């Protein structure tokens, strides 16, 4: 048996697939690629897979962490998995994990890139941030760039982009999800300077 930790990207329209639907989708990719999956030992056995903190529908992910238990001796090749993937799904990195904390402990904080509809709104957001506005209660860092805002949000299992959208609505920056585009660029642990990814190979620019 091999415990395979991996990072995947969820892009395009695939980001509208609910988080809860991702385990069967990913398991089917592994199975199509010819890998045998371990099953849980419950009354109704299921494929053994676990995902990182939920990603709301509509939010893209560049390095989403997950773990799957395979009844194999070696790790799958990324190219092989990709050739059996759905449009919008790609594999960023894989590694075998023998021990260590479970995934949720290694995914405490998330880094998000938020694109607003236009530059005026971005400037307004920048001004609000300078005045002390906190888009969510666990914001670790907020940097306004030329065309987006980079946010690091802590306590990812409890707080996510939904809180940011609600706050932006309250500040009249957006009317709803349709007015912005959010990408989760990394999941890991915030060390005060950066989010240390679940494993380094998955760190995105």
């Amino acid at each position, binding site marked *: 048996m091999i415990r395979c930790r991996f990072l995947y990207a969820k*892009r*395009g*329209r*695939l*980001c*509208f*697939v*609910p988080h809860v*639907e991702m385990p*069967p*989708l990913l*398991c*089917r*990719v*592994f*199975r*199509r*690629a*010819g890998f*045998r*999956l371990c*099953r849980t030992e419950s*009354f*109704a056995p299921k*494929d053994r897979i676990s995902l990182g903190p939920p990603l709301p*529908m*509509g939010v*893209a992910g560049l390095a989403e962490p997950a773990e799957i238990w395979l*009844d194999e001796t070696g790790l799958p090749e990324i190219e092989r998995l990709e050739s*059996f*993937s*759905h*449009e*919008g*799904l790609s594999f960023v990195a894989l590694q075998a994990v023998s021990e260590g904390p479970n995934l949720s402990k290694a995914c405490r904080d998330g880094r998000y890139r938020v*694109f607003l509809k236009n530059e005026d709104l971005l400037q307004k957001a920048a001004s609000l941030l300078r005045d002390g506005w906190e888009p969510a209660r666990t914001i670790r860092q907020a940097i306004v760039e030329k065309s987006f805002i980079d946010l690091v949000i802590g306590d990812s299992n409890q707080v996510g982009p939904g809180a940011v959208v609600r706050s932006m609505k309250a500040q009249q920056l957006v009317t*709803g*999800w*349709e007015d912005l*585009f959010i*990408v989760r660029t990394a999941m890991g642990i915030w060390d005060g300077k950066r989010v240390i990814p679940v494993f380094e190979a998955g760190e*995105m*620019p």
Partner: protein
Amino acid sequence: MEFPERFDPMRPLLSRVKKPFRYIGCDWKGSTEVLEDKKTTLCLAFPDTYEVGMSYLGFQILHSLARRTPETGVDRCYCPWPDMEAELRNASMPLCGLDSGKPLKNFDLIGFTLQYELTATNILTMLDLAGIPLRSAQRPAGTPIVIAGGPGALTPEPLAPFIDVFCLGDGEILLPELLEVCHSCGNERKDVLHELSRREGFYVPSQEGGEKGGTVPSGPFRKRVVKDLDEAYIPETMIVPASGIVHDRAAVELFRGCTRGCRFCQAGMMYRPLRERSPGKVAETAGKIVDNTGWEELGLVSLASCDYSGLEEVIAELEPFLKERRVNLSLPSLRMDGFSVGLAKRLRSMGRGGLTFAPEAGTQRLRNVINKGVTDEDIERTFEEVFSQGWERIKLYFMMGLPTEGDDDLKGIIKTGQLARRIAKTHGRSGKVSLSVAGFVPKPHTPFQWVAQDTRQELYRKGRSLKREAKGNGLRLNYHDPDQSFLEAAVALGGRDVSEAIERAWLNGARFDGWTECFDIGVWESAFEECGLNPESWVNRPRSPEDALPWDHIDVGILRQFLLREWEYARQEMTTDDCRWGKCQGCGWQDHGCPLSGRRDK
């Protein structure tokens, strides 16, 4: 880093609707081919939600078959839920193929699957969103040819003005021929319709006349069938959804047709003759589909899978393979006998939450009337088996309003539920028993096609009374909305004039009429009234064998004499044996290639 998805014109719409995954088209093996250089382009259209349409095996077979047909480009489309319909209208965006994004009106063919009467208005929604005139007569040259197949095509008149060509019978033989005609006619509407009207298996209403008021063309228009399922096209892979659907599993069809002869069952009559796929072919195909799709469950499907003569052989062959792949096996329909329960136990994956059976009627007398072929002893033995094997829950399907039904038969439904509970207790089980009761809908091409449906008031009375009785006996009981059952009958038994009411109801806002959260009988009552139609006059009154019926011109292969004889037997509470195991019952297929006749001759 670039994010082109930011600028996807569908993105704002997807962000606002409740279930955006219905419209994203990220399925595995969804077609990504370029359609532009194909001679003929076909968009298969399912007039219900994505989750329902994706669960229908016939749709998957047709999609795969069209993809491998030379010079043919294929895409698919499902009916947008009202929230997405409103979004598309607000944005002035047309309905497009799910995989290609190509507007439906730019296809050569739009192919609807007609599975259920209450999807009629969804067809109009899809045509309208596509910018295609609703009525065949209003479609100029260059407009896509609108075809329709599936069981609903065998009772075509209520939809006849909206459909250019009905395909009668098995798609495996009709679709390649239709595409070949389109290729050879350069997709010219007039030529294609003319050519198809000359061929067996196609009904082109515009070429046949038929008048308002229920008069129908003479016909007969004969259904065409695949004679040997082993020779028929069978896909070795399927489109795998990116998100959950109703029947989320790989599927292989064991056999087509059914000879049990349940007198209420339209599918049991219309899908005849019985044709079994060989166990070897089933096992071989199942292996490929499982590996190619990655699904964790395989369903062996047909109208009554436990009746398949090669079931033991197939399971024996597949079990080691599926075990090695960690794939569960399931059978969607269980017979009421020990064998089926034992099978469910053996397959483990089946009935995790409980087992489901369909006694259909509460007394032996009424089960004889409908020729259900299940005895009181079968029911008791099945309950014993279910609860002794460790299950805690059971669900039972019944119908109310069946022909000759009396109060005792309704009481029998409750008594059957009580029996299940009693037996559960003797085995130390909690015995949660759910009863689901549907209003009987007389269907065309069945022995009960001449029968009147109970009035809505009568069905409501029966439903409420059953619910009250069930509550007092610790049973859970739900009954289908009698207004929906009434509308289902009104469309099923209707003639061409019903098309007026369908269009009127759609204009008045009727959508997804099979979904209780959308269904509004008031909209339909107004529509019938505005069209000067009184549906009670054909739904709640019996038809005489001398009456012309709106589907008389469609020949599904079943003899009228057979249906009449079965109706007479029903009135006499006489049963008819399943011809699979006994003598030929002369349904009509014995002289037209029924494989069972051949087997008997040998």
